[in-house]
């Protein structure tokens, strides 16, 4: 009984911690739209931006590690919520306001709910095996650590071709215009794909014989 209580309390605590990153977005939206109005590319933000970035980066990293080390599928979903919310705040920091809103609506509102429903519908199973053998975990850890090390070395050493100029953020209007001019064909293909997915999902979910 106490164990259950403890689990519930820790889950709620983590939910609050993860939600803290998301709650920042409303204040951040105002800040980002103000910053995007500045055409001078020299100093976008300064100390406030840096502090917010480090906080959000910490939330993102802790949530990602929580996803890959938690033993319970519902906890994984909660940690994923923290990661998705902090990514949304990162979009606002990058002056991609529209993408931040899309991230919150589609991922946190749609995909995550879908995953939680999937968890609920498939949770009762006589064969409960969640983790793989230790030896496989060891191999996976070695591969992932090597990949992370290589990526960090490359990323910190690289000098990018362009100068690190910060351009003003784009408005939703500009995104809409480019979406129906330059990217019209991918836009239509995405529409066809969504229709195919809708038909496929209906086909998968049908009740037959």
């Amino acid at each position, binding site marked *: 009984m106490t164990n259950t209580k403890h689990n519930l309390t820790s889950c709620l605590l983590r939910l609050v911690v993860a939600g803290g990153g998301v709650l920042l977005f409303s204040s951040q939206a105002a800040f980002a739209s103000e910053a995007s109005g500045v055409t001078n590319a020299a100093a976008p933000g300064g100390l406030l931006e840096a502090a917010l970035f480090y906080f959000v980066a910490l939330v993102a990293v802790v949530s990602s590690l929580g996803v890959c080390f938690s033993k319970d599928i519902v906890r994984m979903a909660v940690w994923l919520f923290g*990661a998705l919310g902090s990514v949304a705040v990162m979009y606002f920091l990058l002056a991609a306001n529209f993408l931040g809103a899309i991230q919150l609506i589609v*991922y946190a509102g749609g995909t995550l709910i*879908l995953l939680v429903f999937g968890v609920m519908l498939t949770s009762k199973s006589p064969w409960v095996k969640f983790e793989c053998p230790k030896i496989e975990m060891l191999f996976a850890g070695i591969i992932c650590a090597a990949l992370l090390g290589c990526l960090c070395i490359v990323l910190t050493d690289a000098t990018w071709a362009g100068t690190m100029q910060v351009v003003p953020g784009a408005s939703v209007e500009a995104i809409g215009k480019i979406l129906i001019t330059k990217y019209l064909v991918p836009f239509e293909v995405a529409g066809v794909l969504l229709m195919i997915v809708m038909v496929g999902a209906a086909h998968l979910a049908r009740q037959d014989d």
Partner: protein
Amino acid sequence: MTIGLTHYLIVAAIMFVAGLFTMMTKRNAIGILIGVELVLNAATVNLVAFDRYMGPDRLDGQITAIFVIVLAAAEAALAVGICINVYKNLSTVDVDRANSLRG
């Protein structure tokens, strides 16, 4: 104390590797799906960061990120449908037990 492109890329790299580790070690199909979502998010962060800091034609990265989000949503919908069908047939979503197509 300015935040540069590299900061965002490092955070995205950590998220990517965490998602990869999740995909490799979890045996629950929906757990694997959660790992895929993490990897896609890391890729999208990369796209938006490059778009912000490097692109002269700066909307390309954001548009690509929108398409990635569309594809991720479609993929999640279909994958959850497949998981539920697997559960209906096998009474489990353990990926090691879905081996009827093994040669």
